[in-house]
């Protein structure tokens, strides 16, 4: 790994560790190897959003060309959000692509992701299914996102009705992830979800 990149990440790592956000447990970062090329990030779901109470893990890969090129970041924790792929965790955020600037840091990336969770941009979606629900059925979107946060990120809000539907699907041979994705994508219409999985 290029010296510039590792040196820079070393500093940024310290910046995050010392930041006030870490002090309030809002962001966290952890090293995965000695040469600072792979990190694990964690952000708390922002308050007053369906993600509140959840902890979201991120995979951060630092390219050799850092900081002239952006780090590769994706969600490891599954999340229901218009700008984050519900399947792969890929993120659609301009600063992680062409709007990246060499002056940005791990800390600004984590804070930007937190801001993205609080204010989705459905017109520039990463996940078209989620974006459609967000625009067409905002209430279903919120309860779905809360349910996902409960299952994958340790949030406290969930819907009993949703849990029962998932159990029904699991009863006929689906696994949990499969059932959740299908039901969420069909606005919790059980018949449509069954058709999608088995049809």
């Amino acid at each position: 790994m290029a010296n510039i990149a590792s040196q820079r990440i070393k500093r940024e790592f310290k910046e995050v560790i010392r930041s006030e956000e870490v002090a309030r447990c809002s962001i966290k970062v952890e090293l995965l190897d000695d040469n600072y090329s792979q990190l694990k990030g964690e952000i708390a779901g922002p308050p007053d959003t369906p993600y509140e109470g959840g902890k979201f893990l991120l995979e951060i890969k630092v390219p050799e060309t850092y900081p002239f090129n952006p780090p590769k970041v994706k969600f490891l924790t599954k999340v229901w959000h218009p700008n984050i792929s519900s399947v792969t965790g890929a993120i659609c955020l301009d600063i992680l692509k062409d709007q990246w600037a060499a002056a940005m840091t791990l800390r600004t990336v984590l804070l930007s992701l937190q801001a993205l969770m609080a204010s989705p941009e459905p017109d520039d979606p990463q996940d078209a299914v989620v974006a459609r629900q967000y625009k067409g059925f905002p209430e279903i979107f919120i309860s779905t996102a809360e349910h996902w946060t409960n299952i994958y990120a340790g949030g406290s809000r969930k819907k009993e009705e949703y849990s029962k539907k998932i159990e029904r699907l699991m009863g006929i041979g689906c696994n949990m992830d499969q059932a959740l994705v299908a039901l969420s994508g069909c606005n919790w219409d059980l018949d449509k979800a069954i058709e999608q999985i088995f049809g």
Partner: protein
Amino acid sequence: MADIFNFIFGVVRNIFRMFSSSRNPLNNSLNIFIKCNTGNTLTVGLDPKWDIKDVKNIIAPKLGANPDEVKIIFAGKELDDSIIIEDCDLGEQSTLHAVKLKDLSIRATKQKKCSLLRETVEDEDEITLLQEKNNRDKSHFYVYCSVCAAMKIGKLRIRCSKCKSGAFTVDTDPKSWNDVLKPNKISGHCEQNDCPDGVFGWAQFYFRCAEHICQGENDIAVPLYLLKNNLRKIPCLACTEIKDIVFVFTCREAHVTCLECFRVYAVLRLRERQFVLDDSFGYTISCPVGCENSLIDECHHFKLLTKEQYEMYQKFATEEYILKAGGVLCPQPGCGEGIIVDLKCDKIVCVNGCGYVFCRKCLQGYHIGECNSVDNNISIDNIQHVTDPAKALQARWDEATNVAIRVTTKPCPKCRTATERSGGCMHMICTRCSFHWCWVCQIEWSRDCMGTHWFG
């Protein structure tokens, strides 16, 4: 008592004799050219310990004048009698200018205590003169010297913008790079006898490499004015280290990188084909923070790259120029010759390069009819049947390369650059022409693509 006195006197006399005898055969003398406003040039050996008064004493007889009728000009300043040669920063074979005054009274009014022009032009810096003085040893101009073929410390020199004579004195010192780089900013007057400007003229600034012996009047170097001494200890924005010499970008925020990070950044963007061809500045890049209006406006700064990297820079710049002018690049492996042809013509012959004949649209061997699959191509090359076994072997590799490129890449719908998709979504942005396109549809990226197959 008298003996002691005599002894001391003797010692003093000996010292004096040693001192005065050192004036004749000079051991560590500087060979200096003295150019006179009458047109002739003298070569003299000067002792670095001498002052300007001594120089005048030598020059005056040769000019047919009294020493106090002569003034010596160097780097835009008249040198005071008391200035010592070694303080003038004169290099071996530098040129001083001697002027024979016609009227002594002019001189009396003009005479003032002149300080020497120092290497300390700082853009809008609040650094005080005192600080500059303290940092004099560390503070330099940097130039690209074509003689040394490297970045070197440079010296600022001044000449008349009209007649190019160095017998020119400035009215004020330059305060910023703007004063130095832009014409007609600093006024002065030219002492050259036949100069049309004479009493009122404009100074022209130029640079010399300080690290090789001056090879004459035309031995000038390009200023790398974005390189500065890091007097304010600003950390590199990329590696965060504080280095002595830094690259300061032209944006309003004046972002700073160290030279190593500048090189890494420039080579990276070069390889990504992210340089832009600017009409006034040439093939260049902007600040790594992405600030507006921050293009590097002097392309000689890319001479900081290695020779190989600079050659790549020149090659890419030429290619971009040809493409911008509506030309094409020969697609034959190892050729890449730029060809500018009539826009209406699809059949292109690589005239000055390898002789390959190809189709402008698909960049494959020339064919009649639509550009479909390559297998249907009727290549003009096929008509010739003389086979060189080495070339045949090479051709097999070339063909395999072509197949690999065809299988793993898709051409950008706009500029036809073969593009590989290494992962991520279907939204492609061409690294050469910045066109946004869809990997699935191979047309311009749209909301439909986003809605239906963003991720495949």
